[in-house]
Each structure stands twice: as structure tokens, then as C-alpha cells.
């Protein structure tokens, strides 16, 4: 159970947050990252209700007008107005930070380049890792804040060896996969008041606090990709970089053409327009993307199974560093999958080798591999390579 919630919440009682600082709450300055959505709004309300000096900050991440193809729209989208209205309702100061160039450099460019390399990126992780927990966190420190609060559904639990990152109480809301890259130093400064709540509780709290966003729908899409049309975004960021090519089988036989490898992800069946069979009645899947050759390589489902995964940019949150001594853990290789058993070993170069007990299908470079010990996040990294046989 989360340590931050002293009592179970209902729609009529507010859970009291206690972040455990030694000074009076009114003298403890907390910056809340407010997106304008219901989750971070409730997080801000809980912090303010607990008596902390609460400061709302909303990041202007991209030109809203340009993203929705509307000319002349200056500045704020609806979300920024919503965050400001919530802050007004809570009686807390609120600021907007212009992070457009940082977001473009750290998240959007990486997103486009990853797709062009044949990977399937997770921009939300990059955003947490850079714009939020590096840049905004530094600003919060410059403001003399004692902690940065976000509306993420994860738990920060004070352990014997320092703060630990744990999955949310409600598995259906858990966002720990997206926060694997949080460093120990960042985690030390962060607080997540929603990690102990189920989502329905958040809505009830939003109504309880009378927040103007209580009925606002949850955001689903990647924020800068309207209507899920990510290919349009890549085309805009890297004009002319999307090139057509061949769809080939594993022997190199050309089976058809495609309009650009960015339209495909490993494990995908739709959009190949091959009749989806190889003549023997077996459905065909994307098994590999070759950016250099502009090829989409297809094969049967059996060709998708992988037991050996290499990850880079390992961020480790376990008590002891991950070394050459193998450890057992449960891993998630996609945000939506249930964790599966695996063995991890450090590669001595800032990455790790992961061996899955059973083959997993449809693993894509660019996705994250996150290791858990029960609900605790041990760490994770970016999938760079997968194999169905042990690497030489």
C-alpha cells in the first residue's frame, strides 16, 4: 500500500497527503506538473488541500495551432486554459513554461528519427525522461521547491535503501512502464499522489473538489499526434524522408510494395495488402524492418518469437546495481502486456541482456523493456536488438 495515503479515499473524504518533510507544510513548496487533465488536476488539489505551498506549472510543449493545422492560433491550447482554470479554482499560483524547443529536440525529433530507423518509439517515456524530469525538475529546484508532483499512476515508496518506484495500486491505471527511466536522483525529488488511487476515485475527487475538468475525457493519443496519424507528423518533421520500398519474405523474394517502413511495426498484419498469406494459407506478419534497404520483411507468426533481447540506456532502480551476476525478474516489453519471467545480466556497457523464459511475439526495437520484482520497478532500458537464438 502507498505510504502517502493515510486513509482510504471516498467521494466525500479527501485522502490526506503527507510527503514526510520535517518542516511545516505551509513552508514546504511543492510544484505540481499540471497538464490540464483530470489526473494532474486532482494531484494539485490533493497537495493544496493537504496544506502545502502549491504551485501549478503547465508546459507548452508544441504549437497547438500548428498541430491542429490552424493558422494564427497563438499560444495556448485548451489544456493550458483548463490547467489555469483549475489553479484559479484551487487558489494556487500557476505558470506556463515554454518548452517548445526542448520538446521538439528531446521528444519529437527522436520520435521521427526512431520511426525512420524502423523502430516503434514511445515518446511519452522520452518526455518524462527529458522535458519533465530533467528540465521541469530543474526549474522546480530553481524555484526553491521541495518536491515535484505529477499525476502519474505510480507509487514512490520509501524503502530501506531509499525511495523505490512501484506500480500503481490499480493495475488498469498503472503507468510505471512509462516511468522506468526515472533516475534515483529524480525519484528522490518526485511524489505521485495518485498511485494509491483507482481511476474512479480520481473522478470522484475531481467532483468533490469542484474542479472544472471533472468530466473531461482521458487523453488517449500521443499529445502531439492528433487523431493517431503519426505518419503525417513524421512527414512534417522530416520532409521527404518517408520512402517507398519492397515487401519481401525472409529469403528476399519481393512480394509487394509499401509506401514507407514507418507505416509498419513488428508483429503487424494489417496494411500489407498481400492477401496476408504466403500461399500455404499461413498469415504473414511483419517480422523485421530494414531502414537501409527500405524493406519490410514478412514471415509467419513462428518467425516472430524471441527469447533473447538486448537493451541499452539501462536505468537501474534496484538496491544493488545490475552486474554480471544474473538476476531473475518479471519483464514487460510493451506497455500493455502482462509481465513475463526473465533473467537479466548487465552487459558492462550501460545496457543489459535479457533472456525470456518463453518466447515473446512482436517485440519491436524502440520499445522499452522494464523489469519488476512483484510491483517494484527494478529498472529498464530500450530494446535495441532481439534474437531467437543466444547471441554469439
Amino acid at each position, binding site marked *: 500500500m502507498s505510504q502517502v495515503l493515510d486513509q482510504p479515499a471516498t467521494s466525500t473524504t479527501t485522502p490526506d497527503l503527507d510527503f514526510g518533510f520535517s518542516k511545516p507544510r*505551509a513552508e514546504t513548496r511543492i510544484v505540481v506538473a499540471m497538464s490540464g487533465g483530470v489526473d494532474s488536476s486532482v494531484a494539485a488539489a490533493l497537495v493544496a488541500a493537504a496544506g502545502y505551498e502549491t504551485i501549478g506549472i503547465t508546459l*507548452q510543449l508544441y504549437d497547438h495551432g500548428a498541430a491542429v493545422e490552424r493558422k494564427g492560433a*497563438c499560444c495556448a491550447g485548451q489544456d*493550458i486554459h483548463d490547467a489555469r482554470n483549475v489553479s484559479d479554482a484551487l487558489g494556487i*499560483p500557476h505558470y506556463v513554461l*515554454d518548452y517548445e524547443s526542448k520538446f521538439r529536440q528531446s521528444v519529437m525529433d527522436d520520435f521521427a528519427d526512431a520511426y525512420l530507423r524502423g523502430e516503434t518509439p514511445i515518446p511519452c517515456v522520452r518526455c518524462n525522461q527529458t522535458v519533465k524530469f530533467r528540465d521541469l525538475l530543474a526549474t522546480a529546484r*530553481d*524555484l526553491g521547491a521541495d518536491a515535484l508532483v505529477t499525476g502519474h499512476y505510480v507509487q514512490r515508496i520509501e524503502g530501506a535503501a531509499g525511495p523505490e518506484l512501484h506500480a500503481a495500486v490499480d493495475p488498469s491505471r498503472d503507468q510505471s512502464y512509462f516511468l522506468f527511466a526515472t533516475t534515483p536522483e529524480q525519484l528522490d525529488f518526485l511524489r505521485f499522489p495518485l498511485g494509491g488511487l483507482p481511476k474512479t476515485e480520481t473522478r470522484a475527487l475531481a467532483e468533490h473538489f469542484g474542479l472544472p475538468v471533472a468530466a473531461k475525457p482521458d487523453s488517449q493519443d500521443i499529445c502531439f499526434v492528433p487523431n493517431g496519424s503519426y505518419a503525417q507528423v513524421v512527414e512534417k518533421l522530416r520532409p521527404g524522408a518517408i520512402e517507398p520500398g519492397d515487401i519481401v519474405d525472409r529469403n528476399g523474394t519481393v512480394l509487394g510494395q509499401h509506401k514507407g517502413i514507418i507505416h509498419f511495426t513488428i508483429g503487424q498484419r494489417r496494411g500489407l495488402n498481400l492477401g496476408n498469406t504466403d500461399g500455404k494459407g499461413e498469415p504473414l506478419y511483419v517480422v523485421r524492418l530494414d531502414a537501409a534497404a527500405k524493406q519490410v520483411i514478412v514471415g509467419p507468426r513462428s518467425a516472430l518469437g524471441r527469447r533473447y533481447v538486448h537493451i541499452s540506456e539501462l536505468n537501474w532502480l534496484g538496491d544493488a546495481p545490475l552486474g554480471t551476476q544474473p538476476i531473475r525478474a518479471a519483464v514487460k516489453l510493451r506497455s500493455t502486456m502482462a509481465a513475463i519471467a526473465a533473467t537479466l545480466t548487465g552487459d558492462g556497457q550501460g545496457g543489459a541482456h535479457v533472456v525470456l523464459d518463453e518466447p515473446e511475439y512482436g517485440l519491436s526495437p524502440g520499445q522499452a523493456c522494464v523489469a519488476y520484482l512483484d510491483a517494484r520497478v527494478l529498472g529498464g532500458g530500450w530494446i535495441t536488438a532481439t534474437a531467437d537464438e543466444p547471441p554469439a
Partner: protein
Amino acid sequence: MAKPLTYLDYNATAPAKAGVADAIAMAVAQGGNPSSVHGSGRAARRLVEDCRAKLAMATGAKTSGIVFTSGGTEANRLALTASGRSRILACAVEHPAVTAHCLPENLLPVDTQGRLDLAALEAALADDGADTVVSLMLANNETGAIQPVAEAAAIAHAAGALLHCDAVQGLGKLPIDLSRLGADMLSVSAHKIGGPAGVGALILAQGITLTGTRAAGGQEQGRRPGTENLAGIAGFGAALDHLAAGLADLDRQAALRERLEHALAPDAIIFAQDTPRLANTVCVAMPGVTAETQVMAFDLAGFCVSAGAACSSGKVQASPVLLAMGVAPDLAATAIRVSFGQETTADEIDAFAAQWKLLCQRKRAA
């Protein structure tokens, strides 16, 4: 929770002077359309003409040359779009309300202190001065740097061009005399001198006419159609009553400016320090701390200051003024503007300086 606010953002808007709110309330209560023939209209007209007379007195203009507008932005637009001249030259550090009317290639460079390059002006006027209006501000809103308006006007006139002066930041902070400045048109705004926002004026020198403005009603001699903003103009008039006292206070404000800059040395970088500046304006960088962070931190400590030009969402952009002065973008991004006025005390300046140093030390310690 509420901390006392120390207001150091006079260049954004100045606090209302005594009597302004009353004058506005009385004008609203009194009512009347200044264009009406009857007694109510005459009473309203009197309020408008009282203000016109005060403004003429304050700027050395003729009352017939004063055109009330909705503020400085509209006055600038009127000056630049209705002057009868098709080519607009403007200084690179002008307010967006001016540069918005100017092609980028017609922006004239400034030196490192933000002063217009007069040789560049002369060169730009060599071709077709007779079809040109030059726009040069009296004093810069961000740095306080005072422009060589009289010199520029002489150059413009020699080439047959008109000179418009955006004096929105100059009124009340410098003595203004239209003929001494040599300006053909001058823009002013009420809320920068402690009047209400939403009212200002374009002041025309003798013989200067506007073209293409008589599209609707005939108010302001057809130069600005639409029923006059009676309450706003009455408030403007009340603020003008304080103008002389404000000008008499400038030496004290200049001493406060020196006091502040002395207190912030040696960590601070002050811009436009080597050129005549407004007595009330300090543009100061705290290297390593972005302006937006500083503005937030000062706000949380109860000090109102500003950074660059804030757009409607409140986000802050690197100052085009500092960039035009050749300041490196990284340094420009750490500059804030402190601007004060007649009501500001030495204690407030000292408290701000102490807070500035605290923030600077916090960054160093991090």
C-alpha cells in the same frame, strides 16, 4: 497566505493614480454622447476636451492634432497605415505594435546599446524618402534606452520622409515636446501613466493629415470614427494631472536605479547601461537562470517583474530587443525587466535586490 506585493512592472502598466477611478466612475455616471447637440452631450464633450487640452499641454501639441484612440497599439497602427506613405521603416527594437506593420527587410539596425543606427537610416532613405514614414520609439520598453528621435527626425525630414514616434514608454518618464522632438506623429497610452487601459492618443504635428480614415462616423475630425471612450478619456485626464509631479520625481527614480544596479553588481549584467536611459527601467540578466524561472520565483516572493514580451498564454520568448542589440540568445533568455515609478520606495528596491541575490545564490549552490 497573501504576501504584500511589490509592484516593479510599471512599464507593463502603472498603478492607477489618485482620482483616476473617481473620474472614471463620475464619467460613467454622468453619461452622454460627446457628439450630441443637447446639454448631456455638451457635458460629455467637456470631459473629452478637458483631457485633450491637458494632453496638448503635456506634449507641446495643438489640441487639434490630438486623436483619441483605444490605446498605443491603435495609435501606432493609425500612424503607420494612414500616413499616406506606403513605405514603413522602423527601428529593430520597436514594440511589436510597430514592427507588425513593417516588412522585416525594413527594420533598421541598432548598436549594442539599442540605439538606432542613424547612418543606416540615412542610407535607407536615400532612394524614396518622399514615400516613407519612419517609426522610432522615444524610449525602449525593455531596456529604457532613449532613442535619438530629434536627430532621426532631421534626417527623415531632409529626405522628405515623415517621422512617427512611439512615445508610449516616454510619456511621464521624459519631458515631451513635439516640436523639439521634430516628430510628425506621436503615440501615447493612458495606462502607462496611471490612467486606465483602453485609451490612448495619436498626436499629430501641425499640417499632418491622415488618409483613408473617414469610413464611418466623423468623430475626432473623421480621423478616428466611433463614439469616444468617455470614461477612459476622463480617467486619462485625471492621470495627466499627476504628470508634472511624476516628472519632478525622475531624479529620485534615477537614484533608485543606481542604487539597485549597485546592489546587484557584480553578478548582474545590465543592458543599455552606456546610453541615456529612462530613470525607472533596469533590464538585468542573471546568468544561468532563465527569465521565466526568475519571474516565477520573484512572483512567489511577492515581486512583480516581467520578462520579454509575454503573449496571451503567459509564455515567455527570448527578447527580440536584446537579440537586435547583439546579445547572445542564451544570455538574452536570462534577462528580466524591473520598472518602477513615483510610488516606489528605496525599501522596496532594497528588498527586491536582496531577493535577487538570494535567487542567484540558490542557483550557485545547486
